[in-house]
C-alpha cells in the first residue's frame, strides 16, 4: 500500500485511519485495493480460536470509554449458550468525542470487516450495528457499504464460500446519550427506553440482548481488528506502551489553533504533544495561556497545565485522577468563564439523565439549577457547599475513580466538572456569588423552607 505524506512522518503505522485521506475509501472497490477484506480472508484460513488468540495477544483496550481489554471481554462468553450476538456501539455522543462518526463515514468497510472477524472468532450468529440517530451521513455510508459487501459475498450466507454465515443489521438510534452505555444500548435495541440494567451480577457477555450472551464493542475497537489479524497480535502490541497498546484516535477541540482528529501512538504520546505539537493542535489560540483541559470527554475530571506531560496511557491518566475515556480533549484558554463552562457540562448530564436512579435524576437537575442561579446573579453564600453535598449524594466521597449511588456512571460524570472547577477556580464561583443580589437563601426570606 502506498504511504500517504502523513504516514511517512509517522514512527508507527496508522491502524484505523490509514484510509482517511483516500477520497473514495468508503467504496468497496477502493477498500479492496487497499488491503481491504484481506484480514477476513486470512481469518477464514485460521480456526476461530486462533483468531481470538491473536486479539488477546494484541491486548487491545476497548476504545469506547471504559478501556476494558477487548480480548478479555470476549473471553467472558459462557460455553454452550446459543445464539450469541455482537452489538456494535456507534452511539457516539460524549461531548468532545468525534472519531467513531469519521470511522463510519470514511472507512465503513474496515468496521464491517472487524465485525465479521469478531463474529467468526466467537461464534456470534448475528451482528447489530447501532448507529447514532443524528448521524445521517454515517448511516448512508454504512448502509451503502453493507449493501456492497452483501452483494460481493463478504456478509450473509456462506461467506467467501465457507460455512461461515452471519448477517449484519444496521440499526438507528434516535437521540439519547445514555444509550452509549452498553446495557442501555441493549435495551434500546430491544425497542425499549434506553435505561441501563443493573450490573453486576450479569454482564452482557453472559446475559445481554434477548437475554443471550452478547459482546458489545465500540466502533473504534472493532476497526482495529482487521489490522491485528493481518499483521498479528504481537506486532500490534509492540506499538504503544506495555499496557496501552496500538494507536488511538483523539479529537482535540476548543481553544487550539488546529483542532482536529488525530491517530497517535497509544501510551507514549503526551497531552502536550497533542495540544501543542506542530502536527496536532499547534498550541493555544492567540498565544493565550491554558486554563484547563478535559482529557477524555465531558465525563472526565479536568486537567490543568501541570498535567500536560502526562502520557496518553490508561493507567497513568487514571492515577493522575482522570481518564482517557472516549479520546476527547477539550482545551479551555484563559478567557474561559469557568463557571459557565462547568454549567454547560453539568447541563448536558442533567438533560441526558435517563431518570432511572433518583440520585442522578434529581441530583443532576439540582446541580444544573444551582449553577444557573449562580450565573444569573442569584447565587447564595452556601451554594458551593450545597453543590458539593449534592455531588456527594451521587458519588460518595467525590473520589477518583468515583463511587456511585447509581446504576451507571452518568450521575457521577456530572460530579467531575464541578469538583474540578471548584477545586481549582473556587474564586470564580465566589466572585459570581459575591455580586449576587440575594445573600441569604430565598426560601428563608420568603418564609418558606
Amino acid at each position, binding site marked *: 500500500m502506498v504511504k500517504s505524506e502523513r504516514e511517512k512522518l509517522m514512527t508507527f503505522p496508522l491502524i484505523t485511519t490509514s484510509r482517511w485521506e483516500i477520497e473514495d475509501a468508503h467504496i468497496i472497490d477502493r477498500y479492496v485495493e487497499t488491503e481491504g477484506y484481506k484480514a477476513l480472508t486470512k481469518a477464514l484460513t485460521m480456526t476461530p480460536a486462533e483468531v481470538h488468540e491473536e486479539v488477546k495477544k494484541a491486548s487491545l483496550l476497548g476504545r469506547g470509554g471504559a478501556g476494558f481489554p477487548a480480548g478479555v471481554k470476549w473471553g467472558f462468553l459462557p460455553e454452550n449458550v446459543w*445464539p450469541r450476538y455482537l452489538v456494535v456501539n456507534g452511539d457516539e455522543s460524549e461531548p468532545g468525542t468525534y472519531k467513531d462518526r469519521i470511522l463510519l463515514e470514511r472507512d465503513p468497510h474496515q468496521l464491517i470487516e472487524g465485525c465479521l472477524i469478531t463474529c467468526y472468532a466467537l461464534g456470534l450468529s448475528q451482528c447489530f450495528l447501532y448507529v447514532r440517530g*443524528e448521524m445521517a451521513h454515517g*448511516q448512508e455510508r454504512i448502509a451503502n457499504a453493507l449493501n456492497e459487501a452483501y452483494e460481493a459475498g463478504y456478509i450473509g450466507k456462506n461467506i467467501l464460500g465457507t460455512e461461515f454465515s452471519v448477517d449484519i443489521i444496521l440499526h438507528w438510534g*434516535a437521540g439519547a446519550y445514555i444509550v452509549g452505555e452498553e446495557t442501555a444500548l441493549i435495551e434500546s435495541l430491544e425497542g425499549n427506553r434506553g435505561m441501563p440494567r443493573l450490573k453486576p451480577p450479569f454482564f452482557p457477555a453472559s446475559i445481554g440482548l*434477548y437475554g443471550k450472551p452478547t459482546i458489545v464493542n465500540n466502533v473504534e475497537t472493532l476497526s482495529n481488528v482487521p489490522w491485528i489479524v493481518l499483521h498479528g497480535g504481537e506486532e500490534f502490541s509492540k506499538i504503544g506502551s506495555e499496557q496501552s497498546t496500538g494507536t488511538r484516535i483523539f479529537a482535540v477541540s476548543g481553544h487550539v489553533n488546529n483542532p482536529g482528529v488525530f491517530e497517535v501512538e497509544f501510551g507514549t504520546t503526551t497531552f502536550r504533544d497533542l495540544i501543542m505539537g506542530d502536527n496536532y493542535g499547534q498550541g493555544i489560540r492567540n498565544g493565550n495561556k491554558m486554563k484547563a483541559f478535559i482529557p477524555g470527554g465531558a465525563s472526565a475530571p479536568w486537567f490543568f497545565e501541570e498535567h500536560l506531560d502526562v502520557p496518553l496511557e490508561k493507567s497513568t491518566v487514571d492515577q493522575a485522577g482522570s481518564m482517557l475515556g472516549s479520546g476527547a480533549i477539550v482545551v479551555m484558554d484563559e478567557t474561559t468563564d469557568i463557571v459557565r*463552562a462547568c454549567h454547560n457540562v453539568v447541563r448536558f448530564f442533567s438533560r441526558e439523565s435517563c431518570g432511572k436512579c433518583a440520585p442522578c435524576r434529581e441530583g443532576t437537575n439540582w446541580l444544573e439549577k444551582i449553577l444557573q442561579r449562580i450565573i444569573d446573579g442569584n447565587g447564595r453564600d452556601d451554594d458551593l457547599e450545597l453543590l458539593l453535598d449534592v455531588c456527594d449524594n451521587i458519588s460518595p466521597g467525590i473520589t477518583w475513580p468515583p463511587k456511585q449511588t447509581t446504576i451507571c456512571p452518568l450521575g457521577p460524570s456530572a460530579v467531575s466538572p464541578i469538583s474540578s472547577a471548584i477545586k481549582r477556580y473556587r474564586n470564580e464561583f465566589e466572585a459570581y456569588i459575591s455580586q449576587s443580589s440575594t445573600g441569604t437563601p430565598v426560601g428563608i426570606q420568603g418564609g418558606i423552607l
Partner: protein
Amino acid sequence: MSRLNEESLRIANEIIDRYPIKKSALIPLLHLAQEQEGWVSDGAMNHIAEILEITPAEVLGTCSFYEMFKRSPVGEYQLNICHGISCHLLGAENLLHHAEETLEIKEGETTEDGKFSLEGVECIAACTEAPCLQVNYRYQNKVTASYFNQLVQEIRDENRSEIPKHGSLAKVRQSIPNERLAGIEPVEHAQQPEWLNRNGKNS
C-alpha cells in the same frame, strides 16, 4: 392521524424480518413514521403497536424517551444548533441568539410559515468544526452569523435540495438480497454455529 402508508409498510416488514424479536424494530419503525409525516402522530404509533403486536403504551413509552421523535408537527427544516462544550467555548450561545433574532422565534419554537424549527442540542460530534449545527441532521460546520443568514435564505429559496425535509434520515437504506441472507437463529434452543469447529484449512 395517519397510519403507515403502503410503501412505509413494505419497508417496515423488511426491517421487522431482520430481528429475532419483533419489538426490536420499534425505533426504526418510528423513524419511518416520522419520515412519512415529518412527525410521529398518535395514529402512526397505534398502527406500529398493531404491527409489532405490542401495546400503544409501550410504543409511546419508547417514543417519548428519544429526542429525535417529535410528537407534534415541527418545521420542515429542523435547525439544531450544537451547544456542547466545544461549541460553547467557540460561541454557540451567540449563534443561538443570532438564530433566534433572525428567525424571530425562541429556541424550541417553529416559524409561523412552518418552515423552520430551532433547537439548542447536545454535542453532535463535530467538535473540531465548532460552532456547528445540523439542518435535518445534515452538518454545517464553523457557522458564522452571515453564513447562517445565507443558509436560511438558500433554504427559503429552495436552493438546498441536498437537505431532505424533516423526518428523512439516511437516503440510502440497507437492503439484503434474499439469497444472501444468513437467516436468524431462534432465540431459544439454538445450536452452536457449525463453523466454530472448523479447522480453517478445509475451506
